[in-house]
């Protein structure tokens, strides 16, 4: 038998249910792995000191439920890692920023509340790009996280710690947040399944906001079934997030499948590394062999997606991060006058990438530029959303590689724009609000090391079940 920390959530849940193992056994196995590797890989910013107690409580609850003849939730006693921008009451939550280094969460995020109700065990909070801004976890104020598959490389980002924790078998699954690919890109770089739900499917209450019209929380896991289980536990309309919706509020198609997958070949002509493209073609063939029809589709506005994203996102960032003023919470630096208090607190608290995006957002929203940038980006966003709607009425899902390349080297991309290009295929689903999943599609070799790459599937709004169904075919 493999080590307990190497089990999938589904496997562990079956063993817990059968009484073969306890939640304490699972927690111990994960903690031992963390102890062994975290110092080198810098994955967890904090490992909670009450993990065994949480697991013990889960075991006690299982016993009580079983004596009452009640079925326990499959996540009861499952050890999970949580990204450091998701609030757990009474615990530190820093968004990997000096600004919130000593901040303690005042309440539970709705996703945490739901996981607590299910009985999941929280191992600790994972490293990330500061305020979720980045694609490599190099922008953390607490040092980069290393990819467990090749420590000279990044795990992706911004949910890099959450991805690396699962890939290194320190946790069975994890939660991340995805504003422009921050779950799917690290999932691809670490050989995992990463899932971004339809905008509005999962409550954003208690996430440290980055781009409020783009952010969604979602799972990272070893298998599609695990990701589906985590998603089904955290989803749902929430009175604390007025952008959350019920399933009934989507008119989108759902199962049964038409078994048609759209491929926008016009987007793949350049920029994707050739062996990544080859793996992509192989997984398409695999789908074809399972009776899927591949359809050439056109998304005329898709080449604009990255530009649209890098206008809308910084605009929302500059507004959302205005709350960090050194007055109500977080880092506070005293200056000569009130303006100075603000400017000094924000300069000391925010890292370079966060400052860059705040400045960019301030620019695109300022009088004289608003129409040329933000106004146009909103118009393009509508156009793109319409194009996706139209295409997704004809096919079940749209397939592209999740990233143009496998995990990059730490320090490889020092120019911000070249880093942004990693998001070229992932930002679209955030702009349009569609659900999207990244599933491993094989390995490519770089410098003698086998590195995973992922295929991304995007479905109609509210049609998560389509992604899980096709995702399982890809991973099989």
């Amino acid at each position, binding site marked *: 038998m493999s080590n307990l920390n190497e089990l999938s959530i589904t496997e562990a849940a079956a063993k817990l249910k059968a009484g073969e193992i306890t939640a304490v056994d699972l927690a111990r196995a994960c903690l031992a792995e963390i102890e062994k590797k975290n110092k080198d890989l810098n994955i967890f910013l904090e490992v909670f000191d009450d993990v065994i107690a949480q697991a013990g409580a889960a075991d006690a609850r299982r016993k009580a439920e079983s004596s009452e003849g009640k079925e326990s939730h499959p996540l009861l006693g499952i050890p999970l890692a949580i990204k450091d921008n998701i609030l757990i009451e009474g615990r530190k939550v820093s968004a990997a920023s000096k600004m919130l280094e000593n901040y303690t969460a005042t309440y539970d995020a709705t996703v945490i509340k739901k996981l607590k109700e299910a009985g999941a065990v929280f191992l600790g909070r994972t490293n990330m790009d500061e305020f979720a801004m980045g694609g490599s976890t190099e922008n953390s104020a607490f040092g980069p996280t290393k990819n467990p598959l090749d420590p000279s490389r990044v795990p992706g980002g911004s949910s890099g710690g959450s991805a690396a924790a699962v890939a290194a078998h320190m946790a069975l699954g994890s939660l991340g947040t995805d504003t422009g690919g921050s779950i799917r890109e690290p999932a691809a770089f670490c050989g995992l399944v990463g899932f971004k739900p339809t905008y509005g499917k999962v409550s954003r209450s208690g996430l440290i906001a980055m781009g409020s019209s783009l952010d969604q929380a979602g799972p990272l896991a070893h298998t599609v079934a695990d990701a589906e289980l985590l998603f089904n536990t955290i989803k749902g309309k929430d*009175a604390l997030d007025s952008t959350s919706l019920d399933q009934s509020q989507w008119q989108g198609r759902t199962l049964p499948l038409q078994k048609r997958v759209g491929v926008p070949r016009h987007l793949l002509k350049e920029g994707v590394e050739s062996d990544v493209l080859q793996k992509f073609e192989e997984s398409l063939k695999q789908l074809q062999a399972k009776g899927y029809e591949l359809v050439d589709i056109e998304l005329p506005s898709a080449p604009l997606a990255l530009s649209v994203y890098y206008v809308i996102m910084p605009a929302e960032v500059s507004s959302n991060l205005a709350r960090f003023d050194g007055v109500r919470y977080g880092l506070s630096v005293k200056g000569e006058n009130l*303006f100075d208090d603000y400017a000094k607190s*924000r*300069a000391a608290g925010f890292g370079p990438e966060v400052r860059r995006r705040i400045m960019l957002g301030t*620019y695109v929203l300022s009088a004289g530029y608003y129409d040329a940038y933000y106004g146009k980006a909103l118009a393009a966003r509508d156009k793109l959303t319409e194009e996706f709607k139209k295409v997704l009425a004809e096919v079940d899902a749209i397939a592209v590689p999740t990233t143009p390349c496998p995990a990059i080297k730490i320090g490889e991309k020092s120019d911000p724009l070249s880093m942004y290009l990693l998001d070229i295929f992932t930002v679209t689903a955030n702009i349009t609000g569609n659900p999207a999943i990244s599933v491993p599609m094989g390995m490519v070799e770089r410098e003698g090391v086998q590195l995973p790459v992922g295929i991304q599937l995007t479905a109609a709004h509210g049609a998560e079940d389509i992604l899980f169904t096709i995702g399982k075919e890809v991973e099989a």
Partner: protein
Amino acid sequence: MISKEEVQNLATLARLELAPAEVESLQKDISNILEYVGQVSAVSIDGAEPKAPMLRNVLRDDAAREAGDTMAGKEARVKEAFPKREGEYNVVRKIIQKDE
């Protein structure tokens, strides 16, 4: 390329203190990024009135929050987070001043 003055003005609007070296690097970075994202200005929005894009207002009922509400009973933790506190109060700088 955007000017140093423009960068400085943006920093003022954004309430950020910048070191001189950062003004220069931001000049370069912001200009490069703007050149790339400038593609969006080619999008045609002729004809159609700017429509409200699939958005609608969602209002909650005007009702008191119940005991089980997420934020209920969390005052103590909110106060603990204040950078400078005096008893029940968050201490802030005097903002309203007499014009000289």
